[in-house]
């Protein structure tokens, strides 16, 4: 059997996979038990989407409950040459869990045991289906928590977080998922089980754990994750700074970073987000403000007092209309509830939203943000911004109604233009949601064929061939006939194909 390097598959775009026949389904039944396999069209419907606008119907969904079952199911797919797509909670925002060409979805949601908590060494070993917030809740009695906190943390899984190298508001100070994973148990594309990393920090050899995190379900399936836990800080202060202009708010962000203060979180919400969230949550965001910053500092009581005072001074200097301080946990939680439900609140007001995920160098934030509004306007679209400002990680939400003819097309065109703007500013096309299906046509703006070929070598070393989560992360030309592919593939070249340095 030939090893299928991803870029090679990309360049000729050949079909290299087989359909799921009834024989395959029977083999899956034998491998994991009939009760753990779905294969009727009605049953499969719930697994054809994630949180993007993409769709792709698998031909079978398997719900393994152990590493052995994952391995057995994957081995069946390998034997029959059918595509495999791992899936967590399906909250992904780049189409990673979508069965782009059908095949078998391996859903990890039933593997949700917290296997071990070592409170002294601040380590937990969990199965991949454990929900992010459930882990933090489980270790809270020990004064610990799991630091990466995607806004979807009530639903998304640790396995999905590992695959996307998920971030969240508090990654500014504490790093993304990759900084909190010590070791992994993996099932490779042929069913082989391998352990990488470990419980101790320095495991000799290449950092395979580091290379795996963020691989978007294209290298292997994580069946156990050893994570670092963090200590709940003794003091946390949350500031709400209210601004009459987005420009002032983004200047305040740059000023805080430039002053050498590293808050635990530094988030921005604009007027459209406030309008969507405030009536539902009553967090106290002023409806007439142009933007608010949610800034959190944590650590020693003395440190948070000092930092909060400095941040207040900077916001005042950047013409904040008002800076409120929340110290009590109930008050802080209300502010964060407002932040973390922003995107779903948009769903209440608009039939559809399309979340972008660009990154720019922080000093470029004000100008790029201005352009985001301008680009949306040019395409006749409303845009709402809620994002990890401290990291320069933008999340423009384009609001639309897909039933309106041409609306989706306009959204994708505006999205491509905004992505391009981020790249031109020296940034990136994704800070935490992943490239997935959605953005593979943009990846050429950042990486050339050699860069991608080197990544393909890593994929080959993991024995993952072209039928392993196909059409994800790498540019592909044919065989992946999904929605954004059709539209985006038209827009991307028009915006330029040079490589940034």
């Amino acid at each position: 059997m030939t090893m299928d390097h991803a870029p090679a598959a990309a360049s000729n775009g050949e079909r290299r996979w087989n359909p799921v026949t009834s024989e395959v389904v029977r083999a899956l039944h034998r491998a994991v038990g009939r009760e753990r396999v779905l294969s009727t069209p009605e049953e499969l419907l719930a697994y054809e989407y994630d949180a993007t606008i993409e769709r792709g119907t698998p031909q079978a969904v398997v719900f393994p409950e152990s590493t052995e079952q994952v391995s057995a199911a994957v081995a069946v797919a390998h034997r029959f040459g059918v595509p495999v797509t791992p899936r967590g909670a399906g909250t992904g925002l780049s189409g990673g869990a979508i069965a782009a060409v059908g095949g078998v979805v391996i859903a990890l949601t039933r593997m949700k045991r917290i296997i071990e908590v070592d409170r002294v060494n601040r380590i937990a070993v969990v199965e991949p289906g454990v929900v992010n917030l459930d882990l933090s809740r489980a270790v809270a009695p020990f004064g610990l928590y799991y630091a990466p906190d995607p806004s979807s943390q009530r639903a998304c899984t640790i396995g999905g977080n590992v695959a996307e190298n998920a971030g969240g508001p508090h990654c500014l100070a504490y790093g993304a998922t990759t900084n909190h994973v010590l070791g992994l148990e993996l099932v490779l594309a042929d069913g082989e089980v391998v352990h990488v990393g470990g419980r101790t920090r320095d495991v000799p050899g290449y950092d395979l754990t580091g290379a795996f995190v963020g691989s978007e379900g294209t290298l292997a399936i994580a069946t156990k994750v050893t994570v670092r836990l963090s200590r709940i800080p003794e003091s946390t202060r949350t500031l709400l700074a209210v601004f009459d202009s987005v420009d002032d708010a983004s200047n305040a962000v740059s000023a805080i970073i430039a002053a050498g203060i590293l808050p635990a979180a530094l988030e921005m919400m604009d007027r459209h987000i406030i309008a969507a969230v405030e009536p539902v949550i009553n967090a106290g965001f002023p409806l007439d403000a142009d933007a608010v910053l949610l800034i959190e500092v944590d650590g020693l009581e003395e440190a948070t007092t000092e930092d909060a005072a400095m941040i207040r001074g900077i916001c005042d200097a950047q013409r904040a209309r008002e800076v409120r301080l929340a110290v009590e946990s109930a008050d802080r939680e209300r502010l964060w509830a407002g932040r973390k439900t922003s995107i779903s609140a948009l769903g209440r007001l608009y039939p559809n939203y399309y979340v972008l995920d660009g990154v720019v160098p922080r000093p470029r934030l004000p100008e790029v943000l201005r352009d985001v509004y301008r680009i949306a306007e040019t395409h006749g679209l409303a845009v709402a911004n809620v994002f990890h400002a401290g990291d320069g990680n933008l999340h423009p939400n384009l609001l639309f109604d897909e039933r309106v003819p041409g609306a989706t097309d306009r959204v994708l065109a505006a999205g491509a233009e905004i992505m391009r703007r981020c790249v031109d500013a020296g940034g990136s096309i994704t800070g935490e949601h992943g490239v997935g299906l959605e953005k593979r046509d943009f990846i050429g703006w950042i990486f050339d064929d050699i860069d991608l070929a080197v990544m393909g070598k890593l994929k080959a070393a993991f024995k993952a061939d072209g039928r392993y989560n196909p059409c994800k992360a790498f540019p592909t030309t044919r065989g992946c006939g999904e929605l954004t592919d059709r539209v985006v593939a038209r827009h991307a070249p028009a915006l330029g194909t040079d490589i940034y340095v």
Partner: protein
Amino acid sequence: MSSTTAPAAIDEFRAAVSLRAPGVVFQDRGERVAVDECLPDVTCAPSIESDVSAILSEASACGLSVVPYAAGAHMGGANVPREYDVAMLMTRLDRIVAHEPADMTVTLEAGVPITALNATLAAHNQFLPLDPPAADRATVGGVIAANAHGPLRHRYGTVRDWLLGVRVVHADGSISKAGGRVVKNVTGYEMTKLYCGSFGTLGVVTEATLKLAPAPPVRVTVAAQFDTASAAGLYAMAAHDAGLAIDAAELLSPPATYALFGEPRWCVLARAAGGPGAIERTLRELRAYAGAMRGALRECDEATWAAWARALEPGVLALRASVLPSRVAETVEVLDRRFAGAAALLSATVSAGLIRANLDPTRGIRGGTLYESARDVVARRGGTVAIDAAPASLKRQYDVFGAERADIAIMRRIKQEFDPRGTLSRGRFAGRI
């Protein structure tokens, strides 16, 4: 000397490189770039990336083995090269390409020494928080390749946590990049992680972009001395658990304390770093913890850390053990006893579970005996030992990365994919890949 390569191939390489990259080939015997007592046949010192590429593509075409070499500060941590035909001296690639103070990032060539970088950044109250032994010489590229770190690891982790993007020249001379220049980025695989600690076996890092940290406004170093290892360990763990504003905390064995302070006692050398209020509180609590463990705490100056770096710079035989934080104090105590007579200096970053040992096997006990003993002590506690420096004879006997693990198969395939001809640092990696 170690080379079994045909002289004709060497000559062919020398001629080809002289043509493509004039002035890059050195005429000396390569004493300055000796690796594990081996000298290269040719030393090249490129000062631009395209020369690095030319050297590698020609070496690859001639079937030669190239070892990238920077300050040489951390060369001991990889296996003896199977062949050492060409030394690629990286220190001329020493430009800072771009410092973005307002974004707190820096892009620089691989040969820039850490200390020189930090001297430049100091004016902006920023720094790259990596302080490996020999930081004055050690280059950014070398620190990436060797995954070298020092006491700051307690708060700031290792180079993988700071590296945002790289440019890499591969074995065939092709050039790729990974990551980017922004502080948060998940576009493409995290190739940067793979290069950290790869000891020049997958590619030659020519340029790196790193995230920077704000320099803490105040730093105060304190040493607390104790009668027992366990008291010192409890003190270090208590400070860690309380979340005090500390950026480094090293547990020192009596010989190490003796080297620094002239007193053979157990000691924790820690540095409070932060704003004035946080520092005051931290020092107050450290004093209280020290008192509770019957220890004596005293303030020392910043120069103590330079003395630490001199004492712990890998010498004749240096080991690095990794255990769980809860096992550190006990492991250090046992190692200290086992190593008695080998003038062993031990220093542990308790929170990271890291133990460094600097030994002198010339004093009676064989190096191999010391290594095996350390390996067994640590393995019994669920940890691993790597060699940071050792005589070539010892390294020929023992893989410096320790026993092979099950994931070695993936590592072999990675090496095979990246460097099928074994052009880069042949035989230097885990499993003598």
